[in-house]
């Protein structure tokens, strides 16, 4: 792996400087997050604005308030919204990954008419200005009868993530040596067999990263969800969170508590997948 340091002995001054820089950078990365946590645990509206990230008092009342919302008929609204978020993000990941892996396999392994055009079209989608397409999307989903339904959100989110996922996976597939596949093909294996038994298992790091991105696309999005969903029991968590940033007043404590709740699962996923993240994101580009 990284060979340089292994061969040379680094002078202690350099090591010290490295640590100093990394510590400063880590503090800068962490500070705003601690600030949110401080806001979330400070009781009432009495948030003190001193720059210290350590709260002067700790209470879980905002967390309790945020997680105990109920529907008009007494149902557990927060639970329902958490479920919506999980379902939409999970389904987006599954659908998005399903579409992207097969497309990426075709673009990587087959040479066929329209391939270049297809790849270019996928790249083009990245430059479409998203927020301005809200109105057409609304009209379209309405025509398909998918307003105020989680299916509509899942479809929109999966297609948003598909082009990027396809490109990333194609890059990774390109780096997987073709010898194994060719051998299998001589033995009479079908494309489907090669794809599911050879290529996918070898592409696990890239799949993990792509899955993470698809999940995040859906988990964090709120403008579309706020436009397309009317019923509070259909909201995803980010839309529910928007309610705390109100017309005249902002309930910062509840907003911060909600922000922590929304961020923690993604942080956990990043933590779990960080090994894959480093390899999966770039291997394709480096070798290809």
């Amino acid at each position: 792996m990284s060979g340089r340091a292994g061969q040379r002995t680094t002078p202690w001054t350099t090591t010290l400087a490295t640590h100093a820089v990394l510590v400063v950078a880590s503090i800068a990365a962490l500070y705003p997050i601690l600030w949110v946590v401080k806001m979330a645990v400070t009781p009432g509206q009495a948030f003190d604005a001193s720059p210290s990230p350590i709260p002067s008092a700790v209470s879980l009342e905002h967390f309790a308030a945020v997680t105990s919302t109920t529907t008009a008929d007494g149902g557990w609204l927060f639970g329902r919204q958490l479920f919506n978020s999980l379902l939409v993000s999970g389904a987006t990941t599954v659908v998005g990954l399903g579409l992207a892996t097969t497309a990426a396999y075709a673009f990587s392994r087959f040479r066929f008419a329209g391939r270049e055009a297809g790849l270019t079209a996928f790249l083009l989608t990245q430059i479409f200005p998203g927020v301005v397409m809200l109105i057409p999307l609304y009209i379209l989903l309405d025509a398909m009868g998918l307003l105020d339904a989680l299916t509509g959100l899942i479809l929109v989110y999966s297609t948003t993530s598909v082009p990027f996922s396809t490109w990333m996976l194609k890059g990774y597939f390109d780096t997987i040596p073709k010898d194994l596949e060719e051998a299998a093909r001589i033995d009479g294996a079908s494309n489907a067999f090669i794809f599911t038994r050879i290529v996918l298992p070898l592409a696990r790091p890239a799949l993990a990263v792509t899955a993470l991105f698809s999940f995040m696309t859906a988990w964090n999005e709120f403008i579309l969800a706020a436009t397309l969903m009317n019923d509070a029991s259909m909201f995803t968590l980010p839309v529910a969170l928007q309610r705390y940033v109100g017309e005249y007043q902002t309930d910062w404590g509840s907003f911060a508590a909600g922000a922590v709740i929304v961020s923690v699962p993604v942080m956990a996923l990043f933590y779990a997948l960080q090994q894959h993240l480093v390899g999966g994101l770039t291997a394709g580009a480096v070798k290809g």
Partner: protein
Amino acid sequence: MSRLLTVWLTLWLAVPGIAGAAERVVLWHSYRGAEETALIAAVEAFEAEGGADVEVLAVPYEVMASKLTNAIPRGNGPDVFVFAHERVGGWADTGLLRPVADWAGAPALDAFPGPALEALTYGERRWGLPLSVKSLALFRNTDVVPEAPATMDDLLAAARASVARGGSGIAYESESFYFHAPWYFGHGGALTMPPPLVDFEGPAWRDSLAFLADLVDEGLVPEEPTGALVAGLFRSGDAPFAISGPWFLAELEGGVPWAVSPLPRFADGRPASPLLTVEAVFVSATAERPDDGAALASFVAGPEGARLRGTLGRQVVAHGSAWDDPALADDPVLTAFRDQAALAVPMDNRPAMRDVWEPSQIALKKVMRGLATPEQAAEASYRRWKAITKPVPPEASPTPYLALLATGALALAALVWRFLAGLRARGEVEHTARSWAWAGPATVATVVLVFVPFAVGIGISTFAHRGGDWTFVGLANYVAILSGSTFPHTEPLGFAYALAVTVLWTAANVALHLGLGLFLAILLNDANLAGKPIYRVLLILPWAVPNYITALIWKGMFHKQQGAINGLLELVGVEPVSWFGSFPTAFFANLCTNVWLGFPFMMVVCLGALQAIPSDLYEAAEVDGASRWQQFRHVTLPLLRPALIPAVLLGTVWTFNQFNIVYLVSGGEPDGATEILISEAYRWAFTRQEQYGYAAAYAVLIFVVLLGWSWVSTRISRSVEAAT
């Protein structure tokens, strides 16, 4: 597993279908807290009295209006909804509302105060029933100011005394016209006809700005006032006065003792009248159950509904009979707000009212920051008003465009035909079909949900949309944007200016993302580094926080009085900076936020690429006697390039369209100077009278700019690759 998933999916996705059936009357509102509880109690009372079953939906306030505008015409809206009266004109024009005269049971109107009913009248018809009235009033700290000030001079004297003691004066959100209105009306202003309702060229507007400038000079109003700051200053006893509305009550618990009274009169006897908002209940024009809806609306607005909303929700209810209840009549807070409402000026319900906020805010901010004289500020607001209310271009003849469209469609059909014929000639049909079976689903989904909406957007860009009317204008939107006829290119809001800001924004971000990411990756790419996993996790964290949350946090951190950044600067002896007061500092605030959230991506890309470089290359270089720098220059960089180019290309495109950060952190301040193209487009579409056509033209231009840029940059990177 997959079967279980299918079952779950079907089950949950089917639920809205069942609940959506018109068995119940659907009511939308955006109340929270006690007001929500009270509304629900009123609805339950309605059901208990034999009314239809009701489904109550709480919709976030920010999206309520646009949801109603979109949903009702398509039959997806509620039967009944609660909203402020200010949109009545626009909604009546677009046929969203059912006039009260058509409601079943002809509700009695005589118990409602005249001005509240007047506010709901437009085009000589009445469109809703008033629920409650809201306006600003004066809150005072009774420890410091026991008696309500009778005149403006008394108020100012008490505020000056507090400032002299080192405290603040009058805490209110002085940068919004809603809060400034009492000064405007107090200086003889009125909501004039024809628009601009607020007479931006008249003496009252100028005089009110001069009055504000005096308050600023004397230090009587806090800088960069937000709702949170006002609440903080008043609660802590720092400010003896706050000007706010009934929603302020929720913030006062546990603070100083207080009382509320109407705003005092100016020396010439004119009252400082706040704007009056009438919250009303409406029946939508496409209601599936209009009669039950009307019954529900009449009940909620009527005597019993009003009593519940007044006692449980502490609303200043409009219905007169509720005030017979001592619980309301003896409540000093509610009666103070009721007295103030009697002196307030109802907000105009014509669509033109919505064009008042942005221009007035320009002037107020300029005065607050001491950047302009009242005359200059008034002039600036008039100019902005002219720009955002630009006249609709003349209608164009669609014939040449339709001909062009038909030619395009024919050419496309011919291309497809040639493509298929070519396949057949080369005998590739089967192979191509089999390959597309793999790539097809993703392509079809992308085409339907990404390309089709964009094509619709291109179509929309040839129309002008104003108040529900679509006019075909051909390329007039593009001409207006590119010619700079709406706003000169050299000023904020001009296309060239916004493009320049966007390019600067993108270049600065990508350079910092890449520089910082690469630098940290090189530090981390050391096998012997102690604590490496910890550093890596901490440095990736910013990526994991949803970016709208990041944006709101950083906006808070850059606040002048309450923000952490100024707090840190103060520790090292730097004066607090007004971050959003000038272009460089506001741009810097946006940049900091976006660099913070964006560098981990580049760091991870670089780290992956660095780890993939075989170590024997370095060994060989070392044998040849290459220095560290030479190794970096001739081994590391060339091998990183293939990984960095796509990451930089994507990073550029993403940053170019990074809407959330600009919109939420600086919000374009000062005066729209930090607005980038995409946030400018969003403003035209959603905050300036839904000028969808103009916004769509912006979007198409953004696309064209990025397309040109990607074409050029791929050319360059290819030629560089070919040369090395």
